[in-house]
């Protein structure tokens, strides 16, 4: 390639390298956002293949498809891949694309660190997925990696630990970037309490990430030293305590749950008003509710541990604190419904997904409340009821909101309208198959089927078969989304700068697709 001498006067000329180097070296928030989104979708599909293998084994009682060791590896890796590889990076992708556009900033505050945050992820993913191929296979200790089982694992466990370290580093850097961007780079006139709710929820999420990712790193490092360096943090024979691991893990783990749902609340809070053509009801209370949920998330962790045998006072405290979370969460649901009330509603794909989110996520909220009652939790802890519960909040919650957001902002990202027909098909297939998959799991759990088992007693046969059919339907439905995105990226009906007539916000003031550089001159917000 012939060398080009850049014109020193032409500041706005774009000199980025092309091809692979463009993506490796880019510091542009839009490029990085796109890479995050593609990465998370690839991880979503690989985690999905693991889930379908699990469901295939559970289609009938007996062992047919995989052996128990490998089954446990699959459940563990499905959890790790979906949490750390799919859901979390997807939200960071949304943050990268949207936060600068929504607050009128030209880019993220630390553009080079942004590049580094992303490029840490592929090596982490290779470590994680590669661990299937080391002697002994991937870790099979469950995504929670409880000691002492995780201390027993083979080399795959060490791969997972290092993958978690790297992904944690990436998350912390991403979170710092988001905090600094939001606090320092808002356009003139964009007061905190005028910020779009998506930015608010991400700001609070970023603080959660900074607070708890180091805790997780500490927990897995202690496992590492117990495994190889003769420490006994979690070994009673050496003065340690296996339950201490659970306390540390869930001190991370519970806020982690909200890390995966708060940005989803943000996305839904952008979409509902846009398609109700009516301002968000109770903006201030939404902000306060989000902050309350975040604060409460630090003081409820041991509700994951009722069966470990805490003293009565401990159980009661964690039960009361957990029940309290229902209040701010309820406020959010009521606010969304009040926003829709007496609006002028239309149901394009983003709104369908957002409405579906409220409906199905709330079911997960109710089962969460039931799980919070300590005596009931004693019966349903570690059963399929819990599996049903957290898939209602993570799939119907986080994932549905991610789809809602994708359909909402795809016109801005690609400059083309996503197919309305395919978007609706994707929604209805997903909604129906999601419920066919996960609703029967409530019954399975109540009737006594433990989770994380490759084989089960005969009375659980028919609901398992049903769940497997639903799971394959749900998995295949996601290919519709792939088709929508590919079609939309390649062409289609050109999108206006503001393709949704009720949408509000700075992102709709720039053309579609958003130019490579936006808001080089900060806009003035009145």
């Amino acid at each position, binding site marked *: 390639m012939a060398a080009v001498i850049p014109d020193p006067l032409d500041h706005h000329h774009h000199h980025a390298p092309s091809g692979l180097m463009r993506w490796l070296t880019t510091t542009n928030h839009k490029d990085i956002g796109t890479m995050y989104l593609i990465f998370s979708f690839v991880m979503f599909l690989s985690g999905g293949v693991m889930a379908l293998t699990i469901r295939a084994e559970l289609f009938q009682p007996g062992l047919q498809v995989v052996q128990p060791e490998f089954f446990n590896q699959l459940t563990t890796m499905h959890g790790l891949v979906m949490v750390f590889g799919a859901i979390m990076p997807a939200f960071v992708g949304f943050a990268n694309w949207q936060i600068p556009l929504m607050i009128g900033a030209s880019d993220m505050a630390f553009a080079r660190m942004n590049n580094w945050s992303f490029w840490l992820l592929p090596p982490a993913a290779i470590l994680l997925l590669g661990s299937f191929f080391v002697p*002994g296979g991937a870790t099979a200790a469950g995504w929670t990696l409880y000691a002492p089982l995780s201390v027993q694992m083979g080399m795959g466990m060490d791969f997972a630990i290092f993958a978690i370290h790297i992904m944690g580093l990436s998350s912390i850097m991403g979170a710092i970037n988001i905090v600094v961007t939001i606090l320092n780079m808002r356009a003139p006139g964009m007061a905190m309490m005028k910020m779009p709710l998506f930015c608010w929820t991400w700001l609070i999420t970023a603080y959660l990430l900074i607070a708890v990712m180091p805790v997780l790193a500490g927990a897995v490092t202690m496992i590492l030293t117990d495994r190889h360096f003769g420490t006994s943090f979690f070994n009673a*024979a050496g003065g340690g305590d296996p339950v201490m691991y659970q306390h540390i893990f869930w001190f991370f783990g519970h806020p982690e749950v909200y890390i995966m749902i708060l940005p989803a609340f943000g996305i839904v809070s952008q979409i509902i008003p846009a398609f109700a053509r009516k301002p968000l009801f109770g903006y201030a209370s939404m902000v306060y509710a989000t902050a309350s949920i975040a604060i409460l998330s630090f003081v409820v962790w041991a509700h994951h541990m009722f069966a*470990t045998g805490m003293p009565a006072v401990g159980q009661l405290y964690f039960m009361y604190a957990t029940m309290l979370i229902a209040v701010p969460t309820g406020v959010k649901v009521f606010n969304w419904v009040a926003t829709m009330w007496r609006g002028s509603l239309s149901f394009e794909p983003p709104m369908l997904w957002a409405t579906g989110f409220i409906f199905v996520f709330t079911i997960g909220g109710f089962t969460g*409340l039931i799980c919070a009652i300590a005596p009931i939790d004693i019966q349903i802890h570690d059963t399929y009821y819990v599996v049903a519960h957290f898939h209602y909040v993570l799939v119907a919650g986080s994932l549905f909101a991610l789809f809602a957001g994708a359909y909402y902002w795809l016109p801005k990202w690609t400059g083309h309208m996503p197919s309305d027909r395919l978007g609706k098909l994707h929604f209805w297939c997903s909604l129906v198959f999601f419920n066919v998959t996960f609703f029967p799991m409530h019954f399975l759990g109540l009737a006594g089927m433990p989770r994380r088992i490759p084989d089960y007693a005969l009375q659980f046969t028919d609901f398992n078969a049903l769940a497997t059919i639903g799971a394959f339907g749900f998995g295949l439905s996601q290919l519709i989304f792939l088709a929508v995105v590919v079609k939309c990226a390649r062409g289609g009906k050109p999108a206006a700068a503001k393709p949704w007539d009720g949408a509000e916000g700075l992102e709709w003031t720039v053309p579609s697709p958003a130019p490579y550089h936006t808001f080089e001159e900060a806009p003035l917000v009145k």
Partner: protein
Amino acid sequence: MGLAARIAASTLLLVPAAAAQAQGAPARYNLQTPVTGLAEQIHDMHTLMLVICLVIFVGVFGVMFWAVIHHRRSRGAVAANFHENTTVEIAWTVIPVLILLGMAWPATKTVIAMKDTSEADLTIKATGYQWKWGYDYLQGEGEGIRLLSSLSTPREQIEGGAAKGENYLLEVDNPVVVPVGKKVRMLLTANDVIHSWWVPAFGVKQDAIPGFIRDGWFRADKEGVYRGNCAELCGRDHAFMPIEVHVVSAEKYAAWVAEHREKAAGAAADEAREWSMAELMTRGEQVFGTICAACHQANGKGLPPTFPPLDGSQVVLGDKAGQIDIVLHGRPNTAMAPFGGALSDADVAAVITYTRNSWGNHTGEAVQPAEVKAGRNKS
């Protein structure tokens, strides 16, 4: 709670599945039929919660779907512009708090009752092993009884070579036996990793944590056979270590204790004698199959790196005392748990003899129970 409970009860009757369940069919849509007071309380509390949640659900989504249907642009709906109402916002914060208080009250009483393990008639210690349960009757009638309880479903049923029996994966060789109507305190611990002892019909689920002892209790009101599973992921055969409890009348229980004592006395006398090589090998193969093969595999090749092979192992081919020590006391920081508590001297002697003379190992050495006894006394 009177009215709420009545509403809950009448709703339950409307669900035919729940009615069918009351007649003894296995649980299908709901918690298993309770046979203890605690399980009963949990069952009723769950029903009450479900009803409250359903009422709120119908209310909230009634409003939402009303809006979805009637406030549509395609129906000519024009958007209002309200976006705040302090009264409403305070109301929907305070009312849920009150509802939660109503839910917390019965739950608190049950938590306190579940934790009251005092004045038990019978105390049984359950120990979780990878992947079976050991039971020690510590106090009360039957004191001193020990049993090891492993899955009795044949491997062919699991692998599809044979038709699956009625209690597939929920049956064991040596079930726990307890008398009806007596308060049984369960002490839980584990030998290797965390397990969890769970019998749904009793409303008891308690993690078994290695190095620690936790407890729970139940008083079964009805004779019968009750089944459960290990509830905490504990490695490969987590799905294959069920719990089977037989609740029997006081007389039957006394008879069971007597029978068990007699057998144990006979076995003890038998243990002390000198064993022949053939006897040791037969017994050893049996013990290896139920205890060791899960990790070290029937062919002695193990599952490296976590579970090392015994075929050609330096330990197995080395000094007898060294191997006895490892089997009795385990190996710290590895998956090898101590088996001194679970196995008798003769069992240990037999299984060691078996490993030293199977596959490619041909030491020709027999280990006698007396040597194991000596190994126990050393530490």
